[in-house]
């Protein structure tokens, strides 16, 4: 350990902060072609589009840290948007937003209860939940996009502070701060690391493993439906199809960021960077006029490549020991 060469130290840190380096590499690369990539407008716009999925990812990160998975975040996102827009017709906007956001908490409570208290496989339970939610969403909207009346709701997702910084970016950063503090500075947050790291040990250490684990689903559902509120405000519409790709896109971002699907390792900071990788990549490829289908291929390759680096790292570390 002590007399490691500089080269080795560099490789180690690249592997450790791979998502961060991927961001750096892309930023450097974009210095060369003549594009508008480095305009303030573009960068803020890029963050703006990424914010909504980032908000979803912060909640989902908690679930994954505690060793679970939630495939129903797309459903929660959709429900958040639809319920907010529907409620707005009959009540004040703030109450509608609250209802939209809390819908995810209800969904998460059901998920958590079934998964934790009845010891069922989270992947299946949340997959089933997401199918149910899609059905409900279609029923509620007759499978057509619905929109809100009046412009005030749209202002949340499209407004800019001081006329430059998009509201969504600011909201995302606030949500990030909340989750960061939870994970870092509260007993609950540290317990999640213990539960994901070793469930039995956590249990025997007097941690209320079931309650804490169930709580992660509630928070993930809430974050997702809140993101749904933001999305419907941004697009001024809500539809049952908006959440179709959400779960897998967000999960791949979380994993690329460095949170382990096995649980116990990671954090919301990493998820933010992981999703940033995809945001920058998409933006850059668009700037370079890369065909949309090819973009998909590249995205898939990047996911696999970054995860392959992970297993290379593990292998190398094993040999070191």
């Amino acid at each position: 350990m002590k007399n490691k060469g500089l080269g080795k130290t560099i490789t180690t840190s690249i592997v450790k902060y791979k998502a961060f380096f991927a961001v750096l590499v892309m930023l450097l690369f974009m210095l060369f072609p003549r594009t508008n990539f480095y305009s303030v407008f573009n960068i803020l716009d890029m963050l703006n589009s990424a914010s909504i999925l980032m908000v979803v990812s912060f909640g989902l990160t908690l679930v994954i840290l505690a060793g679970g998975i939630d495939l129903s975040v797309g459903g929660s996102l959709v429900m958040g948007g639809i319920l907010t827009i529907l409620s707005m017709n009959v009540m004040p906007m703030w109450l509608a937003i609250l209802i939209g956001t809390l819908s995810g908490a209800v969904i998460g409570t059901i998920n958590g209860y079934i998964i934790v208290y009845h010891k069922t496989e989270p992947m299946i339970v949340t997959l089933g939940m997401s199918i149910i939610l899609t059905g409900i969403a279609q029923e509620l909207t007759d499978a057509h996009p619905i929109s809100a009346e009046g412009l005030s709701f749209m202002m949340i997702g499209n407004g800019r502070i001081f006329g430059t910084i998009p509201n969504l970016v600011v909201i995302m950063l606030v949500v990030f701060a909340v989750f960061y503090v939870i994970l870092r500075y509260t007993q609950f947050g540290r317990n999640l690391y213990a539960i994901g790291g070793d469930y039995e040990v956590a249990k025997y250490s007097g941690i209320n493993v079931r309650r804490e684990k169930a709580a992660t689903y509630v928070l993930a559902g809430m974050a997702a439906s809140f993101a749904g509120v933001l999305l419907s405000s941004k697009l001024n519409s809500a539809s049952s199809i908006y959440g179709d790709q959400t779960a897998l896109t967000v999960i791949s971002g979380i994993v690329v960021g460095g949170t382990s699907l096995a649980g116990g390792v990671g954090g919301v900071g990493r998820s933010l960077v992981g999703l940033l990788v995809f945001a920058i990549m998409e933006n850059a490829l668009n700037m370079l006029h890369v065909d949309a289908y090819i973009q998909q291929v590249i995205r898939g390759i990047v996911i696999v490549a970054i995860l392959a680096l992970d297993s290379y790292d593990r292998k190398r570390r094993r040999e070191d020991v």
Partner: protein
Amino acid sequence: MANKENDIILTMTGVVKTFPGVKALDDVSIQVRRGSVHGIVGENGAGKSTLMKILSGVYTKDKGTIIFDGETIETTTPHQAMQRGLSIIYQELNLVNTMTAGENIYLGRFSEVNGMKGTHQKAREALDRIGSDIDTWTLVQDLSVSRKQMVEIAKALSFDSKLIIMDEPSSSLTQDEMKALAKIINQLRSEGISVIYISHKLDEIFDFCDTVTVMRDGKVIDTRPVEEFTRMDMISMMVGRSIEKEFPERPRKVSTPLMEVEGIKTKKLHDISFTLNKGEILGLVGLVGAGRTEIVRALFGADKIKAGTIKLDGEVVAIRNPRDAMKRGISFVPEDRKQQGLILPFSVENNISIATLKNLYKFGILDKNKERQIAEKHIKTLKIKTPTARTAVESLSGGNQQKCIIGRWMEIQPRILIMDEPTRGIDVGAKYEIYLLMKDIVENGGSVILISSELPEVLNMSNRVLTVCDGRINGEFDPEKASVDEIMAKALGVSVEGAMA
């Protein structure tokens, strides 16, 4: 009288625990004095672990009373037990590998100690108390087993434990680490903290303990002050029959060279050369990490060989991976049976047959009956204690798991059987069976390479002993002539002039 009662930290009276089909504990009564080290010995399945799990709240007792520190305890949870001052350090360590040492010590008490800063401060104090220099910020997965144990002890102390139970604490410790543990145990005793010490290693029991309880088949056979025991009667009580000796007669069938290793180099090894003869048990002795495991890993094709040759029957052979090795009749019973040897959710029969499955196909279909027969055969000869051949291996005790692996390699009928710590965590009776197996193999023309930290075992079973130090073979001994000190000194890399007999 009151004074005397105050002298007792733990009283268990008539404790009974029944599992479906098994009476795991049958009217067990034990008293532990304050500030004493109380040893509990017994074969695997004697009920030691069940008893400890009842104390710590993992299991609930069916009957009986438990009084801890003057308080009658009906039901408890592991956490409550710890808060009352009763901690257990398990054989399988109970730490979260992905978290830091400090966080593990104060696991679940993050807010009690005021967050991260307090956690590490208090953890530092706990580690200092046992004189450990472990950095509280190190991830537990990066610590060696013995250091993990230190973290566990520090954790126990952080709860102001009055009684610490150590379940096989020494099973993976080196000699030096043992000395450190001995020091800590003595310190605990002088601070008035009681220790229940469970071990298979009788040497340690005699070294550390004030009082010893022998258990067999869920019952307490006897409790006496340690001075009133002799080694042999302790063993006899454990196995329930008198044992004349711990080791079988040394096999004497050594003939011509079978495997010649010349100048092997790997990442961790430098210039390893030795010869293994037919019918020979060759002992490898060295500290953990000195290279003994690495040598056999290289022979088995598990580590990449950078230079050197291996000859079998005088012919150079290439062993690039474990498959090559197995084709040439080399089998390896690894040290870490859980990680490298067994597929835990698989049944006993599946685990035994896994390496010889290809012989069990009839017209491309697995012959289940034959598989069963083979498994039954080994269950019988090795005396594997399992309800049926279909029981999952994970539900067996450690010793019986080990026997399943041995059964697997017996089935291959290896020419060379490599055994890395074959008797770790195994009780006296089963050990003897394993020795007989080794003997059986060499008497049928095979050879055995035996790695063990238990020197008496190596000295009594081997025909020849090689010492490994720093990735090199630095000595060769005739175990019938050499002394323990001499071999140990060499393995430690100490100059032997003073120790020469």
